[in-house]
């Protein structure tokens, strides 16, 4: 689960990490209040969306930049009027962009140098990894590729936790001296504690800046949390912004379905994550384009299958559906009955191909054939993919 920059900075502040003074706003009245809290001086206006590349982004009406440094309150208000409720397209949003519903106004600061600092879960070592660099403010993946020697990586054992020497090691590697080593140690300690306490998968400060006055502070922040642990953190759950999520995905999560919207036109409904991915792959290999990932789980019942059909069909791009179920402990005849009942319940107006395999497959196929529901039963996954791609393509 991701949160906005302003939420991440509030959390950082709670953990003792200095951030520039700032205020969030979701409407014109709040915008005025937020700006009035800041001096009539340099102000940074930042669009709040769950995607990176905001500064270089462009709004759909041609207005440039989702992050603006302006000279005074008047200019801040002008920038805010352009950004709020406008749609921002960045390298990470896709061409449809993301509607900006919250703005964040902060004090500007005199930057002497920008650094990068993050803690991530490292899969290979199964530990937390501190990643730091003197090349802050830019895409860290680009830094990693161009100058890997500039990336400082320090693993932290989950049982030992972060120690002072870790902090010193990173601080010296970044070239800090004297008072800044202590400042940096406080920041890293707070960052690690927040990462650990809140079950984060990633906390990233990019850039961490040294001001001309010698202060270190977090100018931007990104945090994502482990969805599996979110039940332990009601405070973090409240930070979820449903505006940033696909409504179909929100609906699916209510029914315990793992659904991810994609931009193709052939919907799939599959049991098991691996098989669901493989089903998308095979659709693509036959020249089709999957409209979604959908795992109905091992024990999907009729209600879930019905909900899944409704979610799939709420996507206007969907021109055909491929159901692919391997009946294991959940037998094929039971699944077939669920599909038939759900199909009768939901008005399916696009071609539907069903491939069943596994326990009681013959009984399952018979139920499908005799159901009177307009569907094509398939004998194999290859055939199912071929048929649905052909039907969708011929429908134009």
């Amino acid at each position, binding site marked *: 689960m991701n949160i906005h920059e302003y939420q991440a900075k509030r959390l950082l502040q709670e953990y003792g990490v200095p951030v520039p003074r700032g205020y969030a706003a979701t409407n014109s009245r709040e915008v005025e209040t937020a700006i009035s809290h800041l001096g009539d001086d340099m102000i940074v206006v930042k669009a709040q969306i769950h995607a990176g590349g905001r500064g270089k982004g462009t709004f759909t009406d041609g207005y440039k930049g989702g992050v603006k440094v302006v000279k005074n309150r008047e200019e801040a208000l002008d920038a805010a009027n352009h950004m709020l409720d406008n749609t921002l397209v960045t390298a*990470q949003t896709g061409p449809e962009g993301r509607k900006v519903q919250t703005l964040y106004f902060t004090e500007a600061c005199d930057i002497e140098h920008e650094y990068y600092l993050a803690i991530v*879960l490292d*899969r*290979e070592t*199964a*530990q*937390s990894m501190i990643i730091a660099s003197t090349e802050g403010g830019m895409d860290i*993946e680009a830094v*990693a*590729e161009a100058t890997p020697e500039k990336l400082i990586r320090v693993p932290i*054992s*989950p*049982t030992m936790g972060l120690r002072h020497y870790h902090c010193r090691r990173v601080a010296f590697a970044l070239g800090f001296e004297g008072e800044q080593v202590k400042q940096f140690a406080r920041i890293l300690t707070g960052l690690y504690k927040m990462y*650990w306490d809140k*079950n984060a*998968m990633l906390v990233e400060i990019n850039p961490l800046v040294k001001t001309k006055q010698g202060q270190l502070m977090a100018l931007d922040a990104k945090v994502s949390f*482990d*969805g*599996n*642990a979110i*039940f*332990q953190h009601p405070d973090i759950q409240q930070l979820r912004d449903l505006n940033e999520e696909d409504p179909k995905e929100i609906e699916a999560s209510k029914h315990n379905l*793992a659904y*991810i919207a*994609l931009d193709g036109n052939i919907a799939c409904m*599959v*049991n*098991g*994550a*691996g*098989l*669901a*991915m*493989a*089903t*998308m*792959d*095979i*659709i*693509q*290999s036959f020249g089709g384009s*999957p409209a979604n*990932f959908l*795992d109905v789980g*091992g024990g999907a019942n009729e209600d879930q299958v019905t909900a899944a059909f409704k979610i799939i069909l709420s996507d206007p791009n969907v021109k055909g559906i491929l159901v692919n179920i*391997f*009946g*294991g*402990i959940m037998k094929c005849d039971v699944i077939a009955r669920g599909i038939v009942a759900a199909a009768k319940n939901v008005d399916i107006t696009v071609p539907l191909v069903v491939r069943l*395999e*596994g*326990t009681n497959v013959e009984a399952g196929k018979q139920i499908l054939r005799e159901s009177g529901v307009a569907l094509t039963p398939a004998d*194999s*996954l*290859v055939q199912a993919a071929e048929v649905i791609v052909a039907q969708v393509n011929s429908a134009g």
Partner: protein
Amino acid sequence: MSILVNKDTRLVVQGITGKTGTFHTLQCIDYGTNVVAGVTPGKGGQLWEGKVPVCNTVDEAVKQHGANVSVIYVPPAFAADSILEAIEAEIPLVICITEGVPVRDMSEVRRRLYFHNTKTRLIGPNCPGIITPGECKIGIMPGYIHKPGRVGVVSRSGTLTYEAVWQLTQRGHGQSTCIGIGGDPINGTSQLDAVRMLNEDPDTDAIIMIGEIGGSAEEEACAYIKEHVKKPVAGFIAGASAPKGRTMGHAGAIVSASGAGTAEAKFAAMEDAGVSIARNPSEIADALLKIYKG
């Protein structure tokens, strides 16, 4: 024959009295698995379903009933605790079926597995379990699709494993042992660990490895296969069509923003290691049978 589990396995089920634990334990007993005890704290002394003694702790199950393998069906919030309890009871093999375990918990568990005196191998979490056909089934896989034989199967995905196994069985090829290692980013047994065990097993003649996008487990296994494995190996990777940066159902199935963990890179590693590649999931058994006649 097989690796890890067989007819001598004495299974303890952690979370036996829960709905999931009960359902799957009944199926496993039907298959012939020897379930010697269950663990549900506070229900010690009861007899589950009139046949299996329930203990309060894993230690009791080991000392009083001689359990040597544990399977875990407890809810995700308690899974790490259950795994750690089984490790401290020195159970040699622990299989965690539970899906949705917080990754921070798993990083602590993995640290514990690295201790020099650890006697336990962990399989999972978020996995279907492990089966040695005809002898012992531990987990949630449908037993009847399997058949005793000499092909070893390792996979990150449950239903994809069933697909491959079913294809093998229908073509007359049985399996030595099938291991579901699970779809989480941090797990107990890697593709490499499983491939190595199957390679060293005299009763396994050929290997199928099924992977997914995300991480580097398949690449590591392929490096080992290239160096050490003379047995025929076939492989498949799910997720070639998945977009970057999205988690595809399994927490571990994600191509990072930097492009690490793609299906393309994994297929290339397989190719380099001489693995016979299935380009779609219907051809997994056929990919093996191209290079292995049984």
